[in-house]
């Protein structure tokens, strides 16, 4: 069954804040092998001009991965998650995330397109800090395999 294009443009915001912890940053950095002390030491981070330990690139996935779920899993959208693969991912930062940040997200379904047998869904998520400033914009593209309308009708 093809995805409901009426959902294009719909938005959702996270209910509360994700408080970024030092230990979580350290755990994430260690998991990917980011050994630089700026990802582990508050002193090193402050010496470099940051308020606290700096989160590595892609750390934002922790808050963005589920941010659009209220939209994507809305039964109105008709998405079958068993058919979904992660197609593309992009992060554009205005500043690094640091320990102590209180993050919230605002997500929007940007587009739904047919590409061959598949439908491609692009969502954009803004990651905001406590003052409402955008820290990072994440673009996520997922592929819904075999659900394009022409195929589904066969």
């Amino acid at each position, binding site marked *: 069954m093809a995805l409901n294009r009426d959902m294009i443009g719909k938005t959702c915001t996270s209910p509360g804040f994700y408080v970024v912890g030092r230990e979580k940053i350290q755990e994430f950095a260690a998991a*990917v092998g980011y050994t630089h002390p700026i990802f582990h030491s508050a002193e090193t981070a402050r010496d*470099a001009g940051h308020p606290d330990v700096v989160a590595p690139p892609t750390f934002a996935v922790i808050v963005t991965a589920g941010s659009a779920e209220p939209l994507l899993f809305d039964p109105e959208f008709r998405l079958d998650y068993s058919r979904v693969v992660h197609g593309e991912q992009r992060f554009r930062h205005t500043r690094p995330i640091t320990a102590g940040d209180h993050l919230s997200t605002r997500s929007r379904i940007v587009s739904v397109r047919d590409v061959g047998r598949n439908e491609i869904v692009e969502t954009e998520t803004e990651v905001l800090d406590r003052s409402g400033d955008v820290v990072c914009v994440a673009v996520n593209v997922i592929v819904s395999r075999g659900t394009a309308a022409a195929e589904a009708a066969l």
Partner: protein
Amino acid sequence: MNSPAVPPAVGTALTPTGYRVTRADLVRYAGASGDFNTIHWSDRAALAAGLPGVIAHGMLTMALATRFAGEWSGDPTSVVECSVRFQRPVMVPDDDDGVEVQLSGEVIDVIGDVAVVALSAQTADGPVLGGATAHVRFTSAMGG
């Protein structure tokens, strides 16, 4: 704060670097990222999903790509933007050696103090990322 600097020129190549990923790394990344999708730790689940076996999180491969770009620039906070297309899953065998992901790259554009780097990630099975880029901001205090 450091002042802007001139990035390396278009055509500058990044030294190819190998990163080893084992099943233990997938467990650790699952916990760190919150992605507990079973295809990243259970062969049974991976096979049921039509995969030959457990695969790495695509986001872990993306993190390795940005780590590679940051290590090249000498300033790990310099990667201000990154973008990847997940082209092929990374199979991770259940042994002590795991899989080696080879990263390479080249500066393809310079916009002010930012170098746009085209990144390539490969395993023995071929390329795993397509159209991968990182925007790396250069400042006067940076090395490399």
